[in-house]
Each structure stands twice: as structure tokens, then as C-alpha cells.
């Protein structure tokens, strides 16, 4: 069992390779240069979101409000520019909103001790509702001339590779540096591994948890900007989609256990590739949206079951009411 656990990412990678191979052989139009670029472009945003989710999951939390952070602040940027504000002002406002949102999440989880799933479920609704009620005029916020130039964040290529993939790469490097090279990263792992031990060791658990959610929200906002730039608009109804489950799939399939303290950026990359291949294959096979959701749901369920066997919950540190 222990050996198996060590090799989890390799297994996922093998599954990815197999799936890729099967799709290449049996699916027309899968293994074409165009499709590969589309695939990578599509998964770039998902991958960035996966990185954001990875940070909180490693710290034994979860952030369901990530899609709200993806949709609302970037949507606000587009809306403000549309209304005649300058791009830097709008960006600054959006970043401040994101930080405030992350602080609220973190405070609720770290200080008010609301379970993370529950808190972020509610704050996500709150932020999405705020966007719907007060910020946006239409569900899809359109690109406006004031944004020109900004679309390069998500469109075009650098050295022949689409920009969005570069953005994913940059995000990977930043998160990897944060998790592996800084003291804060080590703290996050410690908190995820055993929150009580971390706390008695003298790690400032609560501020670090708040920090996690602020960083996650910021990365989510970044992903939203990349998304908006690549499609030239911000479809804010994305909050109602099942994107969040894709993100959780990426993290869980990649091998970052939901019980915290394990995994890293590499797991996110592997998970992203697998999910990206799967989604792309299903799209080529012309499976309906609902059918895709059904398949994703079942795969996620299997992944969570497997995860619960591979990374069993630590009964010593699991909290009563840790739902």
C-alpha cells in the first residue's frame, strides 16, 4: 500500500498516457497540431485554477468560491473600463476586491472557525450575488476599446507557444517557489499535515490560513483575467457551471490528498493534463454538456473514493464536525 501511495502520480500519468494514446488512435482529429493547441489553451485556465485550489487543499481546506473570484473581479475590470475608467484603476480595484474577498474567506475559516467548504460555498454565492446585483449590467461583460492590448494576456503566441500556456507556466513557477522555497510554504504543509501540531509548534496558523485564501483568490482572479483576455469577454454565468468540479478533479486526480499536507505543483500539472485530455476527447466525441458532467461526476466520485483509501483521514487530527 505504501509503495502504491508513492507512485500515485505516476499511475495518474500512466492513465493520462493511455487515454491520450487511445484518443489518438480512435478519435479523428484528436492528434492534430490545432487540437493540441486548443487542448492546451483550454486547460491553461483550468491549470491555473488547479494551482490556486492546490494551495488551500494542501493546507487542509477547500475553496468552492474560486469560480466567483474568477468571474467577479475580472468582470469588474471589464465593466469599469466599459464605463470609462482607466485600465490601471480598474485592475487595482479588482485586485483590492479580490484581496478583501480572500480576507473574508480566510477570516471566516481561521478565526470564526466555519468549516472551509461551508464558508466558501456561502461566500462564493455572496460574491456572485454581489456581481449580479450591483456590479454587472449584463451577464456577459463585453470587451471594450479601453481594454485593447490587454488581450495579449490570453491570445497570441510567444515563441510559438500560446500565451495562456506561458501564463500557466509562470503561475506554476510562482506557486512552486511559494510552496517549496519560502517559510510560508513550509507552514502551509505543516498546517495541512497536522493543524494542532503546527499550532503548538508556534506556527501562526490563523494568519497563514488567511494568507492561503488571499493567495488563492488572487490566483483565481489572475485566471479570470487570462480567461477574459482569451475570449474577449467575461461570461459571469460561468459561476453557475460545473467548472469548480473540474478544478477539484484536477487536484484530487493529480494526487493532492484532500486530507492535506501532500502534493505539489507537479501533481496539478499531471491532473490538468489528464482532465484536459478527457474533456477534449469528450468534446470531440460530441457528448452533450449534461453527459460530460455525468462522466466527470462519476470520475470525480471514483477519484474521491480512491483518495479516501490512499490517503485515509487521520482520525487523530480530524475534527468533530469536519464535514
Amino acid at each position, binding site marked *: 500500500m505504501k509503495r502504491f501511495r508513492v507512485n500515485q502520480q505516476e499511475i495518474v500519468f500512466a492513465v493520462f498516457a493511455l487515454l491520450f494514446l487511445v484518443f489518438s488512435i480512435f478519435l479523428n482529429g484528436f492528434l492534430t497540431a490545432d487540437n493540441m493547441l486548443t487542448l492546451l489553451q483550454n486547460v491553461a485556465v483550468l491549470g491555473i485554477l488547479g494551482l490556486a485550489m492546490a494551495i488551500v487543499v494542501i493546507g487542509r481546506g477547500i475553496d468552492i468560491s474560486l469560480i466567483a473570484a474568477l468571474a467577479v473581479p475580472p468582470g469588474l475590470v471589464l465593466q469599469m473600463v466599459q464605463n470609462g475608467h482607466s485600465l490601471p484603476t480598474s485592475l487595482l480595484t479588482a485586485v483590492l476586491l479580490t484581496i478583501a474577498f480572500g480576507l473574508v474567506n480566510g477570516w*471566516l475559516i481561521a478565526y470564526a472557525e466555519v468549516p472551509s467548504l461551508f464558508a466558501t460555498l456561502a461566500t462564493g454565492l455572496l460574491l456572485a450575488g454581489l456581481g449580479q446585483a450591483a456590479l454587472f449590467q449584463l451577464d456577459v461583460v463585453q470587451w471594450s476599446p479601453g481594454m485593447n492590448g490587454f488581450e495579449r494576456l490570453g491570445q497570441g503566441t510567444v515563441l510559438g507557444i500560446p500565451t495562456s500556456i506561458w501564463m500557466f507556466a509562470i503561475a506554476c513557477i510562482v506557486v512552486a517557489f511559494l510552496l517549496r522555497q519560502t517559510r510560508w510554504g513550509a507552514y502551509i504543509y505543516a498546517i495541512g499535515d497536522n493543524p494542532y501540531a503546527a499550532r503548538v509548534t508556534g506556527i501562526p496558523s490563523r494568519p497563514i490560513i488567511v494568507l492561503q485564501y488571499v493567495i488563492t483568490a488572487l490566483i483565481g482572479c489572475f485566471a479570470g483575467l487570462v480567461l477574459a483576455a482569451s475570449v474577449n469577454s467575461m461570461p459571469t454565468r460561468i459561476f453557475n457551471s460545473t467548472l469548480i468540479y473540474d478544478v477539484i478533479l484536477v487536484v484530487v486526480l493529480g494526487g493532492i490528498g484532500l486530507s492535506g499536507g501532500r502534493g505539489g505543483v507537479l501533481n496539478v500539472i499531471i491532473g490538468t493534463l489528464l482532465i484536459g485530455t478527457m474533456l477534449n476527447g469528450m468534446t470531440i466525441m460530441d457528448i452533450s454538456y449534461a453527459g460530460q458532467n455525468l462522466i466527470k461526476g462519476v470520475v470525480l*466520485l471514483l477519484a474521491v473514493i480512491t483518495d479516501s483509501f490512499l490517503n485515509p483521514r487521520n482520525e487523530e487530527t480530524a475534527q468533530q464536525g469536519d464535514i
Partner: protein
Amino acid sequence: MRDTLTSLRYRYWPDHLLGEILSKRWTETAIPVILLLIVGFAFSRSIDNFLSPASLADTARQAGEIGFIALGLALVVIVGGIDLSVGSIFALTDFCALYLLDVLGWPVPAVVVATLLCGATLGAVNGILVGYLRLRAFITTLITLIIYRSAYDLLIQRYSNAIASAFPDIPSWDFIGAGSVFGIPTVALAYIVIAIFGHIFMTRLRPGWHITAIGGSRRSAYNSGIPVRRTIALCYVASGVLTSIGALFFASRLGTVGGDIGVGLEVIVLTATVLGGITLGGGKGSVAKSAVGVLIVLLITNGLTTMNARGGVNRMALAGILLVAAMVDIRWQKNRTRIISKVYVAPTYHELPPPPPTEIGQGGPFEQNDKLRDVEAIGLGRIEAPEDVILDRHDNLYAGSRHGDIMRFLAPDYQTMEVFAHIGGQPLGMAFDREDNLYVCIGGMGLYRIKPDGSVEKATDETNRSMRSVNDDSRLRLADDLDITDDGLIFFSEATVRYEMDEWPIDGLEARGNGRIISYDTKTGTTRTELRGLKFPNGICVASDGQSILFAETFGCSIKRYWFAGPKKGAVEMVMDNLPGYPDNINLASDGNYWLALVGMRSPSLDLAWKMPGFRRRMAKRVPVDEWLFPNINTGCVVKFNEQGKIVESFWDLHGENHPMITSMREHRGYLYLGGILNNRIGRYKLENADPNFVQYDKRWGKQS
């Protein structure tokens, strides 16, 4: 002047009620109910016809449907999980019912049964995953939410036209959806029936207790043999079934399978559940809380819809309420005991005049001496905490011990010690009746009877509940001392109704009349509260006239007389007030006078503090318990007083070695036997000029051995 004001304020303002109300479990339901009233009132003022019969009936139908789902979720939350898939189960079972009825043309009863089965199956999937495979409830039901929802989407793509084009005209089906009995909609009636059953199930039946136990502590429940996994799984099944009941009513009312049915329903139901006060994480909740939560949420969402709020506002309101309610609930659960312990102690004003002098050279009846210096010690180091001592007709000595035993020292030398009877609670006052049964007041347990052969029987442990008390005062918390009248009526004191035995000094800090005197009739077996509002009533002794009892009020520093028979029946009269110490047990002396133990002496600091309730309350809030100012019980004395309340003699142990504190004393054949609740010995003091043949209960019951 200021003292008068303070005394009036503390006399008439019931400070002690706050802590008592907060420690009641119904306060947690009362808060959402108050919120419901406020919300209802606010909307009825701002929206016309908000409370009109038509509008109410409409709300009742919705409330019934959502109420069923909320009941299921409440069950799952109480068992310690969560079920987010209810919205999708609702949609799927709604589809199931309409498909069977409209497309396959099944009869209504079959549709009902099949729909319930469908709900049970969907719930069982959750149940197996969460209960047996022990997955995280939140994430698992989040996934089944999306799986069920996609299945529903796929199904309605194929069948929505067929369902939409069918117009079934079945009276029984319409009755389910739109009928009413006596003006109450069917769904509301069904909800009420099931809610009442649910209440009985959760509070009176074994499975309901199992559910609460598992939610409270899964591991303890497992260790005590409760089938944890099966119970959890069944809760999810029940949640599925209850959701499908809601869906049945919904299907028969509207008959549609729109794409957005049940979307976001889980958030509404979850908000209702948390708002009602059902604790996330399990172990606490009730049907009433669930119902109140549903009503509040429905009033708010309906009110907002009527006021034409945008969709986002509704969403924000729900999420905001959900967060605030969850936060309040979590903080309250965490700090509940701390908050209650802070506000529970409610000191009151208690003024005593300066005490009579006790110092040597000052004269007076309490003048200190050293008579008890050389008393003989019985059972030294072998007995612990003999609060009361008593001797039987054969001169054997009995005393209670801290370990819950009645110990017996055998006459004549009192060297042999044996356990006479094991009771399990700390024995306090003791008395013999005519048949040589030993009646004992047991702290925390009540009044017990020990037969001469050592067998233990409960005499009484409850009295009539007083209507004005918030705390349930029917149980005896601290029965203290007793005596038996010639007619077989037992009067015993209960020192306090607000504190447990180990917290008795806090009652002294409060100095409120929390105690009472209760009578137990040995002939009829009835218990009755005789007097209440006494300041820590303690020692009791039937007076020589046979018509009254003398009782000590420890923190009232007084001895009073209560007539239970004769011309002055029912009257209470002061015998001695302003004692220099805290009186404890009273017993008969051979010369017709009474012995009284002073367990501790008053100190100027506590006397002053008793006049400053605010000071004591601040102390109780801000200072740890072991630093509080408590009544001194380190030094005391024994005094003898006569029928008129005059002190005849006093006995002290100035060195504080043998008997620094004395809670009880008995005269027997020329000796005085001394007990103290903190002592490790029983004292035996040779009395001069005492009747060498005096045996207390022989004298009382008129027999000689």
C-alpha cells in the same frame, strides 16, 4: 441611602434568571423563533397582503414542500453529515413521479410508492458512500449533486415534451397538489403529521437517540455499541425519502419538469437548517428548529421576491444569512459553557450588622476558650469528611464519608471501623426513626433510608416543581440535614437549588435565598416543599415542644423556628440572628438546650463584600474561581443555646489542630461527638455536668435500652 437603593435593586431585579435561562436548552430554539417574529412583523408592515389568507396558504404549501427536505437535511446534519444533493434528488424524484404518471400512466398509489423508492435509492447511494465508505459528506454529496443533476438534464431532454403535453385529470393527484382539509393545504397537514412523528422519533425513540449520539461523538457512539455506519447510511436514505415526499407534492401542484427545478435548493434548505439553529457537525437539533428555519427563509425570499429584488440580491441575502447564522452558531457552541458560567453567578445584597465579639477578654457568650484542645480522636486518618455523626441505642457511632459510605465504629472503644452501608453519594445529615432506620441526606442524591441490616432504600429525591422557578427545582440537588417529628414527618433542608454540591461555596458568594425546607411524610411517602427562599438552610432539629423545628440559615447567620403544627402553624420566627459565624447542624442536648455548630467564623471582608453585589459579580466574571472571596470555614466552634435563643456556653479549639472546623456534634452518654466535613477524625469530648445516660433518640422516642 445608597445601601437602601442597592438593596431594593437586588431585591426586586431577578439577576439570577439570565444565567438560568441561558442554560436552558430551549433558548437555542427561542432565538430563531424571535427572529421569525421580527421578520414576519417587518415584512407585514412593508408589504401589503403579506399575511392575507391567500398569501399564507401559498406560503404554507411552499413551506410544506421545503419543510420536508429540511427535515431530511436536519436528520443528516444531526447525525454529523451534510446532504447537498437534496436539490438534485428533488428534481429527479419530481421527474420520476411525473414520468410514471404522465408517460407510463401508472395509478397514483403506485406512483407515490415508486417515487418514494426512487428517493430512497438516491439517498442510499449517499448513505453507502458516506456511511459505509466513510467519505467526506460535503464533497461526496456535492459530487452526487452534479451526477444526479446531469442525469436529470439528460432525462428531461428526452421526456420533457411528453410530460408537458400530458394533462392528467386524476382527482386524487390533484388533491395531493391543491387540496386542503379545513382550509389547511394537504401538504402542510402532511408536514405537520410527519413533523410530530419526527419530534417523537428524535426525542423519545431509541433510533432518534442513536442519531443524536452519533452526531455528538461518533467514536463514543461506536464504543457504546451503536451501529454507527448503518445509522448514518439510513439517515441519508431518510433524507432521500423525505425529499421525494416534498417532490411528490411539488409535482402534483405544478406538474412541470423545467430545467431549473431544484437548482440552488440545497442552499435554501441549508440556510433554513443552520438558521433554525441545527448545529453543523451534528449532535444538536430538533424538528421545531428545522420548521422555524424554513419559515424564516421562506418569508425572507418571498418578501424579497415580492419587493422585486434582483436575483443577485436574493442570492446575497441567503448567503449572508447562512454565513452569519453559521458563525453565530459555531461561536455559541464553542463558548456556551464559558458564557453561562460567567453570567450564572448572580450575587445579591446581603447586609449583616457587626458581629458580636469573640476575642478573649472582650467577654460575651462567644468568648474564645481552649476547651476542645484535648479531645480524643476516633478513627484518626481512617475516616474522611464525617459531616454528621450519630450514635444508635447500642452506642455504636455512625459517620458519613467522602467515598459515599456510612461508616460504623463499634462500641465501646470505637477502634473497629466497618462500612455499614454503601450509598455512592456523600452522606450529610443523619437521623434515626422509631424503628431504628437511619435516614440520611445524600448530597446530590436526596433522602435515603438505611435499615438496621444495612440495606439502602431511596426515600425521596424529588419534590413539587415550583412554577416560578426557571431551573427545574423538582430534583433535590443538595439535601443537607434532617430531623424526624413524633408523627413520622421528616423535615430536611436543601441548601441550594442553583448549585451542585461541589459548588456550595459559590452559593455563599451569591448570598441569595436559594435554599428551602422540604418535608417527607414517611406514612404516605409524599414530599412537599415547606419553605423556600432561605439562605443556605442547613441544620434542622425538632424543638422540645414537638410543634416546631429549629433550622439554621448558614449564610443568613441566623437560627429560625418554623411551626409545622399547633396554633402558630406555618409561622416562621427568628430565634437568634447576627451570629458571629456560619451555623451548621443543630442537635438536642441532655439538659433540654440545643447544640449548634458554627462551621466557620464571619470575616469583615466577606461581610463588606456581601453589601457590594456589583463587586462580587465583577470578581466572578474576571477572576479565576480559586481566587474568589469565599466564606471562611477554617475555624469554628460549638455553642449551646436555650429555647429563648440565648447562648449558654461555647467550645473552641484555639490551636486549630484537633477540630478547627466543626459541622456537627451529638451528645451521647456524657460525651460530645464532633464531626467536620473537612476533618479526618471524629472528636470525643467529655462533658461536665451532663446526664451520663442521655441517648438522643431514646429520649425522643421514649424508650430506654
